[in-house]
């Protein structure tokens, strides 16, 4: 697999805390990798290490085959980066910023830039400091996509934006993917937003990677299970391995199965709880995420969950 981003044991310590610890992941070329996690999980710190804005304490990262520490103008011209913490020059107008960026990139596509500014409804003559938050993000994205990067790194692009602006951002990004050789690494707290877009998902929690896998695989192995037992007494049987959030109310037993297998899991439950009625429901990415996070928080983190 040709990886556009690779990290190996990436760690960053601040004082006595590890903001990111032992992060090892790969982003294949031509994919959309959604990097998810709650506030303070270490997502921005990770991205800053990828972009050589911050040095790692330990471990390494490579972007487009180059060690992050060695990223220079040539590599950066192939990376589009949009982040909350970026400061755009407030005194420039939108079109002045585009004009400023244009000569810096050999691959600058002015037609595409104009189209994006238009699609994003950005007033060209407006000073950036007068723009709303959503418009600032759109401006940053337009100026990043305009030079047709190979890799787009987006740090919480949807944070605090209304649904209309989110639509516009996603549309702009999908327009850019309409050619060869694109890859996207997007971090988000908003799991729902990326569910339809992600090829792969990585969950970061308190600096550690809980899991990183193809989204279809995650969706395939997680099920919310509800078992209605024949009578209140019969839940003595041990539950299968790999379950989270076990709860019981009367004759109803509920849990999250992290190792669901079509057919086999139903059979296993039928043999554990004969005469019970069981339902296996697929879970949204958000519910999977919450189950994993809660599982770790309660200390009952499941090995291999």
């Amino acid at each position: 697999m040709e990886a556009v981003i690779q990290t190996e044991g990436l760690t960053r310590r601040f004082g006595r805390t590890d903001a990111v610890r032992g992060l090892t992941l790969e982003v294949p070329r031509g994919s959309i990798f959604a990097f998810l996690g709650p506030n303070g999980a270490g997502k921005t710190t990770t991205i800053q290490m990828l972009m050589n804005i911050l040095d790692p304490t330990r471990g390494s990262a490579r972007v487009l085959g180059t060690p992050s520490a060695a990223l220079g103008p040539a590599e950066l011209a192939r990376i589009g980066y949009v982040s909350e913490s970026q400061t755009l020059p407030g005194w420039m107008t939108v079109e002045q910023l585009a004009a400023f960026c244009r000569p810096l990139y050999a691959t600058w596509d002015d037609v595409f830039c104009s189209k994006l500014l238009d699609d994003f409804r950005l007033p060209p003559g407006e000073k950036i400091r007068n723009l709303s938050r959503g418009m600032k993000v759109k401006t940053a994205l337009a100026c990043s996509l305009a030079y047709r990067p190979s890799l787009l790194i987006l740090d919480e692009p949807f944070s605090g934006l209304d649904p209309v602006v989110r639509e516009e951002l996603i549309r702009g990004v999908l327009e850019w993917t309409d050619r060869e050789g694109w890859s996207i690494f997007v971090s988000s707290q908003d799991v729902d937003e990326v569910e339809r877009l992600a090829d792969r998902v990585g969950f970061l929690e308190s600096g550690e990677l809980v899991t990183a896998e193809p989204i279809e695989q995650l969706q395939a192995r997680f099920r919310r299970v509800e078992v209605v037992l024949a009578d209140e007494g019969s839940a003595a049987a041990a539950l299968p391995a790999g379950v989270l959030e076990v709860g019981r109310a009367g004759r109803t037993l509920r849990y999250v199965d992290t190792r669901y297998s079509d057919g086999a899991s139903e059979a296993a439950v039928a043999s554990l709880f004969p005469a019970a009625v069981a339902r296996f429901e697929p879970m949204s990415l958000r519910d999977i995420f919450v189950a994993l996070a809660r599982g770790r928080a309660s200390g009952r983190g499941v090995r291999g969950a």
Partner: protein
Amino acid sequence: MLPFTVEFRHGVPVFEAVVFAVKKAVASGQLVAGDRFPSVRTLSQGLRINPNTAHKVVASLVAQGLLRVEPGIGTVVAQAPEAHEEQRAALLGAEVERLVVEARNLGLDVRDVLDAVRRQWKELPWKRSSRPKG
């Protein structure tokens, strides 16, 4: 705008949801043989889905014979082939077995299931008059 609707449901992979939506549109006559099918690009942008998934959807539907690539024109809805013996066996065998198992686990009666099948059948008007032989 797309010539069919997709119902995305949590937990159901996007790929499956879109493939099913196309099959449903063909089954109901919303899409007929010869109709132009959206490009991968249009699918991706119209449905707001990963371009890779859009690509897989089209590839899968072409492989299954529901779509055909016409050089110079693009992708079109294909003429429905006569159901192969294996396809009929697969549908009437494994799929029905799955439905029956789930229904029984939920304590449903065979009449509930048959009523539901009849209702669904009526909801999708079958435009083609030809019936498989035998």
